[in-house]
């Protein structure tokens, strides 16, 4: 089972990153001959702020090499202000150059030492800067000052909240919309059902009333009506089915089906094909023809189904030049469509097809529909180099259950692989020909594969008569395994 993983705590650990080099603070490493006072001067910040940032109480002590946190924004701003002050008082010209060189001066008191200036009165200035702004201002400020990681994550968070709210509304909206459409559908469904049944019971139904034609212009009504009609049609045959087709045409629904068939989305197109096929609208056959070999497998299957139903004379003509490998699902659906038009073509035409899937289909169908004329051609395909085709041919011959190819099958047994071997025994069993007795006996006694032995024993059992006597006599002198096999084969409950 899938592991539930929400990684809820995962990113949280990254606050460690933040703890050490947070965006707002820098670390100051205490050097020789420094105290908090000097450090506060160095950064131009109030001594009390330094104390509070670092949780220092009255009896604090700082160690050489230890870290002190200093809030970033003070560093440059207050310092430059102090330099401005200093320069103003000492008539020192401060250019960018000198600012840079001033960075090299370790502390402001050393700076003051240099210019023999008493800097203490200047300390009142930085306090003004440290005045705390109002809450909103602070939030906004800290957002704009924050680094880009902070900003991105914050925006993502807002996006998440927004998207959850939007999703909630989408779900709500959809539910309400569905509810509304369902109410509308249920309103007209009963009326339409009644109308369609009335139509079916009338001997010669007249025209569709104007009011209904008008109603069907609305897509909800139309979809209900069409769905009802089509589902009813698929369960009917003969006269009543024809009546429904007539109703479909006279209700003016044909053009909508054609419009669907020309739609650019494949799933609408496929539905359109389906409606065209069911309602025998043959005008757009060329369009369907184009999609018989479509790359979209669903569309191509729908097109094939439609093609079969719209060409009852030669339904499987597209088999002749199919290049692609048809899936079993597609073939299954072709078969369903064939059943709908009640046509069983002669599959001999494709028995030697080079397209493997078509050949397999033809062989299988020859067996299913017991087309005995094709026995020779199916038997020929036993020599095919493809194992699947050989297997299909073996099964088909078994289904036809005529003893003619018995000998060929028995020969094939020697060279076949294990799966095909079991199929051969099964097919021979179905042919129930007494010439197989020695073969079954040999397999049962000499083969190593237990499944094959059981199958051939069953083959013997199915033959009754002579085979039964033979089994009984073998049973007397059999080893335990063979005995078990024979008992198993004879148990008709299995």
């Amino acid at each position: 089972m899938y592991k539930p993983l929400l990684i809820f705590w995962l990113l949280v650990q990254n606050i460690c990153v933040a703890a050490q080099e947070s965006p707002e603070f820098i670390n100051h490493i205490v050097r020789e001959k420094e105290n908090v006072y000097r450090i506060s001067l160095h950064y131009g910040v109030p001594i009390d702020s330094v104390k509070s940032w670092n949780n220092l109480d009255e009896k604090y002590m700082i160690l050489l090499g230890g870290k002190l946190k200093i809030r970033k924004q003070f560093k440059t701003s207050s310092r430059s202000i102090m330099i401005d002050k200093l320069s103003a008082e000492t008539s020192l010209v401060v250019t960018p150059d000198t600012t840079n060189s001033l960075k090299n001066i370790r502390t402001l008191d050393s700076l003051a030492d240099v210019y023999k200036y008493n800097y203490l009165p200047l300390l009142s200035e930085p306090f003004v800067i440290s005045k705390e702004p109002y809450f909103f201002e602070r939030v906004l400020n800290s957002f704009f000052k924050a680094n880009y990681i902070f900003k991105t994550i914050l925006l993502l968070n807002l996006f998440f909240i927004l998207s959850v709210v939007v999703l909630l509304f989408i779900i709500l909206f959809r539910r309400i919309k569905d509810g509304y459409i369902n109410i509308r559908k249920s309103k007209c469904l009963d009326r339409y059902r009644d109308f369609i049944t009335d139509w079916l019971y009338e001997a010669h139904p007249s025209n569709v009333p104007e009011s209904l034609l008008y109603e069907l212009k609305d897509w909800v009504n139309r979809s209900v009506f069409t769905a009802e009609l089509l589902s009813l049609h698929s369960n009917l045959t003969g006269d009543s089915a024809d009546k429904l087709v007539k109703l479909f045409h006279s209700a003016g629904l044909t053009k909508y089906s054609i419009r669907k068939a020309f739609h650019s989305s494949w799933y609408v197109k496929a539905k359109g094909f389906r409606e065209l096929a069911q309602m025998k609208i043959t005008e757009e056959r060329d369009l369907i023809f184009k999609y018989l070999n479509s790359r979209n497998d669903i569309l191509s299957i729908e097109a094939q189904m439609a093609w079969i139903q719209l060409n009852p004379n030669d339904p499987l003509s597209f088999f002749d030049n199919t290049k692609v490998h048809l899936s079993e699902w597609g073939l299954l659906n072709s078969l369903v469509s064939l059943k709908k038009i009640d046509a069983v073509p002669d599959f001999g035409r494709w028995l030697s097809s080079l397209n493997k899937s078509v050949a397999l289909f033809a062989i299988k169908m020859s067996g299913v529909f017991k087309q005995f004329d094709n026995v020779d051609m199916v038997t020929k395909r036993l020599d095919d180099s493809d194992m699947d085709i050989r297997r299909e041919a073996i099964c088909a011959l078994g289904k036809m259950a005529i003893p003619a190819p018995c000998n060929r099958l028995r020969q094939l047994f020697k060279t076949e692989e294990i799966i095909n071997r079991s199929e051969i025994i099964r097919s021979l069993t179905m042919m129930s020909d007494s010439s197989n007795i020695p073969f079954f006996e040999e397999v049962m006694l000499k083969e190593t594969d237990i499944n094959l032995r059981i199958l051939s024993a069953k083959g013997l059992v199915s033959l009754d008569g002579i085979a039964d006597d033979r089994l009984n006599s073998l049973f007397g002198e059999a080893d335990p395994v063979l005995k078990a096999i024979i008992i198993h084969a004879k148990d008709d409950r299995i």
Partner: protein
Amino acid sequence: MYYIIKILNFLIENGIFVYAIAIFISYIIMSIISGFEMIRYMRKNSFVDYSAIISSPYAPPVTILAPAYNEGNTIVENIRSLLSIHYSDFEVIVINDGSKDDSLEKIIAQYQLEKVDYMVNYIIPTKPVRGIYKSTNKAYSKLLVIDKENGGKADSLNAGINISNKKYFAGIDVDCILEEDALLKMVKPILEDSENRVIATGGVIRIANSCKVKDGKMVEINLPKNLIARFQVLEYTRAFLMGRMAWSRLNGLLLISGAFGVFDREIVVKSGGYDHNTVGEDMELIVRMRRYMIENELKYRIVYIPDPLCWTEVPDNLKVLSRQRDRWTRGTMETLFNHMTLFFNPKYGNLGMLGHPYWFFFEWLAPIIETIGVFYFILVFAMGNPDWPFFFLLLGFTYLFAVTYSAWAILFEEFTFARYRRKRDVFRLLIISLIEPLFYHPINVWFALRGNFHYLIGNISWGKMEKKGFTDKTIIKK
């Protein structure tokens, strides 16, 4: 020493950061792929007539294998439900795995069974079969019961595989409730793929707690009343609709849950059947089948179907849940470590480069890394002064990501199958998604950690004990 700590520190911080980003991105990519795949699936199957399969010569024959251990209370009903499935060519094999209760007697009495002289062919070695039973009543001709000595779920399934001789088999938990058209929907992908051999299909497991069941069919679907089960509804929805669909598309699905999956019998037999030495036999089998196909250079696919086909009761108390999760964790570890050759092995394609590493890093390792992260945080918290605004921001980010992800899963469900028809239920699910990361997730991480611990302990002292029971669901069945 200082530098070692420094390096470790760097590794943990950056490693976790990269890991977290990777996991977020993988989640987003997976859900996008799943989304598109889901849309396609829904469109594709909106006009499919599944019943066409039933009457067709193309319907692949399927055996349903239902292993049962001490299921006496429900087994008769469950078998009835299995027999009423809509399919043409199928049989039901119930394997009684040496139950200590009266399961076998009950089945024999109810379905008029009698012993037959079956020659069992042990293609895959299993514990000895004591007897094979068939019904004297023709109505139950599709039923076959195997009575064997106790050997665990994998062993029972192997016994079933030995006896079944149809091309495909469906392994299911006997206490699951299958939708009637479950098999039809499961075999369709097998028929559909014309280029690859589909060796297995998996279905969604949905949660049946608090739902009404009548005659082995779901009558009314409700959101579970129990909170723990409700959490799991969300969890399952997310996992099945958002994760598996994408893996199926990439043909990298590593797990088809043992509760319901259809397998190609020939390939299963050739790759050696279920491994009874692991607690995660379902995942292990898929990995082995994939390896078999790749090593023999055969084109194959493992497909997953998002339709809700199989309903099952999930644990509704922490004790049972912990045991289940423990087992899942150990199963995952056993499979991953037994097949370490796959790990980033380009020879195995998506399986080696994507599937196995994904499970290794994001399924097995995730709870462990998460725990390391939490401890590291506590350490930092104790030693220094965390940056609280940033902390809450990231906390908010992970939390909101989780909630959004769940909300998307609910939306997927809403737009596809929408099994919970009451508006109230959907809102409840959304509320659940708000509290899930705070309560249910940490508990799950804890269970996973315990699973890891038990795996390590088990390898040393426990050995191969405790392999007898099946799913832990058995325990909560009333």
